């Protein structure tokens, strides 16, 4: 992957983007804007979650409106042990993986029996179930949430303490996720997932039990999203059921679609654009006219609509138009 430079314009852009993200802490220190590192950290965590959603939605055609549930699960897998003064990072990590996988397996086993709108509705229903479960758990703060006083504790060389260490944790998980998804979609398994998106009946007639393959893919995606939740819990130091509300799930879909659904780097650039707009559009509106500040959602929504209408393939789609020669897509 790193052996040679990518030949396409979009590929070079993504390489440059990853290099910039790798040196971001220095840029931030140099420009003396510590707040930027917070923004980047949050953006990259959401990018991990969006990339995991892209795996099932973009490559597998499974549009889930409940993916934020896994963010919440990951976050509570840090928060609840922390509530009992258990800060061991391996415990948090193991718990996140096991609980996310179990939740994905149980809910996926049911929801993957359905397709299209029904799948959207069932994933939404499951995420609302777990949302209200946590709202009603008074012991863990109910809808007020929980404060996490200390970050997950890992051995020194893997520490999360301090904003820069945490940033690199997040960046490393993002890189691993991108690499994993890249390998996955080109593997035997991935071809089955992509094939089932295009024509499930045909895949079955080729001898593939598409339901099982999809369920496996759903579990992998859920675990990755759970890890994003673990990072988010550590990053914010405060967790609440709001993290897994369906609005968060909808935003994840937006990020994927904005960036380019079904393309490896789509969710990363989509999340970047989303977080950037969310942050700076209000300020821009305020700059235009101070009384417009609270209406920033209006141009935000319009931008999203325009992007979906005219930017086929999202930001990635526009970037790949720059490529001088037509390349094969990831699909």
């Amino acid at each position, binding site marked *: 992957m790193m052996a040679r430079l990518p030949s396409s314009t979009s590929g070079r852009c993504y390489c440059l983007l990853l290099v910039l993200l790798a040196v971001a802490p220095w840029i931030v220190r140099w420009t003396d804007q510590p707040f930027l590192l917070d923004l980047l950290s949050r953006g990259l965590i959401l990018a991990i979650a969006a990339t995991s959603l892209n795996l099932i939605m973009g490559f597998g055609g499974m549009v889930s409106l409940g993916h934020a549930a896994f963010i919440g699960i990951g976050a509570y897998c840090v928060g609840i042990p922390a509530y009992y003064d258990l800060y061991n990072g391996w415990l948090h990590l193991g718990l996140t993986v096991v609980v996310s996988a179990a939740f994905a397996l149980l809910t996926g086993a049911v929801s993957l029996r359905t397709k299209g709108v029904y799948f959207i509705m069932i994933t939404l229903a499951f995420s609302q179930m777990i949302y209200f479960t946590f709202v009603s758990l008074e012991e863990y703060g109910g809808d007020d949430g929980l404060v996490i006083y200390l970050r997950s504790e890992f051995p020194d060389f893997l520490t999360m303490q301090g904003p820069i260490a945490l940033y690199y944790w997040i960046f490393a998980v993002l890189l691993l996720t991108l690499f994993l998804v890249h*390998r*996955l979609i*080109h*593997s*035997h*398994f*991935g*071809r*089955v997932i*992509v*094939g089932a998106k*295009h*024509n499930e*009946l*045909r*895949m*079955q*007639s*080729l*001898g*593939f*039990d*598409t339901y099982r*393959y999809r369920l*496996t893919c759903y579990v992998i995606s859920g675990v990755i999203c759970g890890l994003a939740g673990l990072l988010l819990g550590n990053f914010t130091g405060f967790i609440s059921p709001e993290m897994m509300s369906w609005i968060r799930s909808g935003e994840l879909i937006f990020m994927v679609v904005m960036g380019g659904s079904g393309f490896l780097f789509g969710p990363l650039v989509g999340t970047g654009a989303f977080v950037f707009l969310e942050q700076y559009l209000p300020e821009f509106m305020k700059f235009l006219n101070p009384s417009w500040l609270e209406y920033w959602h209006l141009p935000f929504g319009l931008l999203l609509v325009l992007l979906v209408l005219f930017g086929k393939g999202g930001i990635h789609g526009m970037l790949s138009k720059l490529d001088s020669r037509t390349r*094969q*897509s990831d*699909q």
Partner: protein
Amino acid sequence: MTKPLLRICGLCKSFGGIVATDHVELDILPGIIHAIIGPNGAGKTTLIAQISGALKPDTGQIEFNGHDITSLSAPRRARLGLARSFQVTSVFLPMTVLENVMLAVQGADGHSYRFWRPVHKDPEMLDKGMAYLQQVGLAGRARHTAAAISHGEQRQLEIAMALAMKPRLLLLDEPMAGMGLEESARMIGFLAKLREQTTILLIEHDMDAVFTLANTLSVLVHGSVIATDTVKNIRANPEVQRAYLGEGHA
């Protein structure tokens, strides 16, 4: 007498009030091309769908190679050696021709729970895929996307994918549909050669093709088989002429 490869007993299927399959009894012997003809709406595709497992019959039994497969899922049947091509071309349009066949090669290999090695860098997979493309004469198109090749070529690709499943019984649902004369002739020649490799159950509207290719013919009318015989005898059968070949022949 040889044992039938596929045996269908008392198969029935209705959709609401419409009887699509009506007590079908059918034996397909190994090593031949067995054609099913019948007017539009006779239930030919419904029958294929039940054999391949895409549809569940209401009653009746399907035996394949001596085993009852009536309750098996479509993927299980495909892995047992029942491959199917579709009446409406259903290849994977965004993928390349080679990728399409390689998916079928994967399907024949058993499970695909292999998560790491890229398929397109696996020389064995590529060789196998190319071999099947060569067989149907599509090797030159391997790198094109399936959407970019002609309709006739897509039909050939369908067959290549079905062949890559290493089928014991090949179910072909109107392989010549929508093809030009020249393409049809080429396909007929190809299917004739294929007879040595596998048993074929052929559904086709093109009577020339059927009479050239088939060893045995079954005539399906209103969901039931009214006659099964050699091509010569079927052509002479007055009941078949009345029901299917039209008044002109009667």
